[in-house]
């Protein structure tokens, strides 16, 4: 039984995409294991950062939670309700409680709709506005919430800057009063100066509305700023999960260590003098992940056991867990 303040519980989530071959008769020759056994939970009002390099499955995890792609196996429990097997019609009421903010501020707004229609669409879809006046009032208050002016409602998306567009996308996500917002790289496409404003907006909204975020990103500085806890993903798995402070102060997994070491320090002397820990090689294919620990092909601290035995997530106390044989005791 999950604690009442747990918004989302993901257990051993797997998303495999079939790989088909053959010109006439298509048969499955393998599968891309985009997400391969991911477990975590998110408490109400917290922000869970999900980091990892491109292709590690972080966006796929977000989409699977929203049930926008089929889950191969595993369990997704949202507000105590197991939604893993829900079909489209049973998902409809759930969708009111879970929303998404997208990476691309240009592609995520329909260029043919006015801002008021974009922000108000969720209201219309779920029949939340009783009449025109209520609808307009709600749209105006949503725009105000994200720092836009109410009279911007009559304009089209192309009249806005990237940062403003992202605010429109956030307003749309807020329209239904969701409990959980999955932010899929919401600031990656923005200028650095605008990034800070949007990240601050996310935080202000969280405080005001008690929102829960899953914040997917590859920018470790942004994630550090906004997240309470951070999960590091590598090749479809979570390799380490820890509260923000601990993770940045003392990363346990060699992959996390390498990631953090790759953040440049804005001081040329310190930067030049610190020990370099560069991981070499490419991310292995998600179709044929290496046996044992998935990171062993690139790990600087690889041991014999890593090549054959898959390390499981071990609780290290204090809310952190790591999947690495270095910590087998």
């Amino acid at each position: 039984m999950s604690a009442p303040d747990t918004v989302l519980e993901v257990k051993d989530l797997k998303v495999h995409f079939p790989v088909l071959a053959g010109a006439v008769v298509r048969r499955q020759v393998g599968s891309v294991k985009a997400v391969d056994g991911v477990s975590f939970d998110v408490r109400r009002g917290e922000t869970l950062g999900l980091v990892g390099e491109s292709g590690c499955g972080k966006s796929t995890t977000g989409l699977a939670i929203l049930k926008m792609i089929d889950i191969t196996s595993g369990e997704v429990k949202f507000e105590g309700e197991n939604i893993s097997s829900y079909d489209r019609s049973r998902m409809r009421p759930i969708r009111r409680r879970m929303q998404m903010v997208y990476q691309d501020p240009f592609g995520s707004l329909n260029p043919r709709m006015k801002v008021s229609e974009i922000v108000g669409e969720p209201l219309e879809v779920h029949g939340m506005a009783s009449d025109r006046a209520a609808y307009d009032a709600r749209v105006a208050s949503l725009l105000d919430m994200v720092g836009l002016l109410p009279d911007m409602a009559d304009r089209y998306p192309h009249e806005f800057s990237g940062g403003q567009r992202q605010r429109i996308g956030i307003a749309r996500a807020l329209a239904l009063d969701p409990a959980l917002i999955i932010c899929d790289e919401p600031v990656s496409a923005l200028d650095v100066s605008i990034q800070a404003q949007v990240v601050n907006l996310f935080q202000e909204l969280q405080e005001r509305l008690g929102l829960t975020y899953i914040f997917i990103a590859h920018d470790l500085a942004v994630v550090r700023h906004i997240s309470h806890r951070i999960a590091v993903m590598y090749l479809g798995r979570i390799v380490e999960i820890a509260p923000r402070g601990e993770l940045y102060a003392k990363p346990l997994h060699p992959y996390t260590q390498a990631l953090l070491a790759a953040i440049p320090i804005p001081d040329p002397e310190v930067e030049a003098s610190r020990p370099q820990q560069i991981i070499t090689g490419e991310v292995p294919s998600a179709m044929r992940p290496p046996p044992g620990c998935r990171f062993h092909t690139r790990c600087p601290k690889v041991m014999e056991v890593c090549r054959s035995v898959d390390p499981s997530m071990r609780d290290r106390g204090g809310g952190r867990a790591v999947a690495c044989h270095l910590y087998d005791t």
Partner: protein
Amino acid sequence: MVAVAETVRSPRRRRLPASGMLSFVGRLFRDKPLGAFGFVVCVIFLFCGLFADILAPYGYNQISPLNRLKPPSAQFWLGTDNLGRDMLSRCLYGAQLSVIIGLSAAGLATAVSIFIGIVSGYLGGKLDMILQRFVDAWMSFPDLIILIVVVSVVGPGMGPVIVLLGLLYGIGGSRIIRGAVLSVRENAYVHAAQSTGATLPRILWKHILPNVMAPVIVLFTTRVGAVILAESGLAFLGLGVPPPAPTWGGMLSGSGRSYMYLAPWLALAPGLCITTVVYAINVFGDALRDLLDPRMRGSR
């Protein structure tokens, strides 16, 4: 209160919200002079078509044996044909038939294209596969063969010609719409609508269709010309709208072709009509496509 420098700037002065249709025509004339020209020509031809009964000085089949093959004159502005029928009157009545056939067949074709294209492109999967193989098969037949076979079975006439040309061009054109849908449906805004729980009709109507309007309009305007020309081809084979009903294509390929050297006005008059209308519809369509796109507002 969230107040950030980036967003708190005074809003740009906005255009006065004029009533839709009127402001649209206003923008057409201000921003798209060529499109406005096309629009005016289309209106004139529609007008001629609608009021041919009043405008035409003679009946379209009023034969005058004394005035055969007369060149243009004050009495017969566009001359007369081999049976002594007034070409101006025939062209005016022809506007009626050709415009009706052109618009309705092209309209039907576009509707068919949109339906197949959206269903096939958006739903994808097995359905897409089956539909597209059917379209492949259909397109691999020469148009004219299909036309001849079907018309000789059901018999010539305006109805069959419209339906047939509509289906013929509609199925082929669905490829273009499908391609556009394939690219539009991958946009994050479509995804956002899906994740909100929007229904399928809503997504198709509000998100897919408006964003494939550009190829739809171009498809429609090019089809109008194609249909008018195809009808003339059918008329030449005796499979179009049966004589003496005057269609431009029929005039061009009938007496126009036979007496081209003796009386060039017989070919010139309907030929110019076809060219002008097709050109006008095309430039008007292009202007329409630009004006309907909110991104083009305020730009030329």
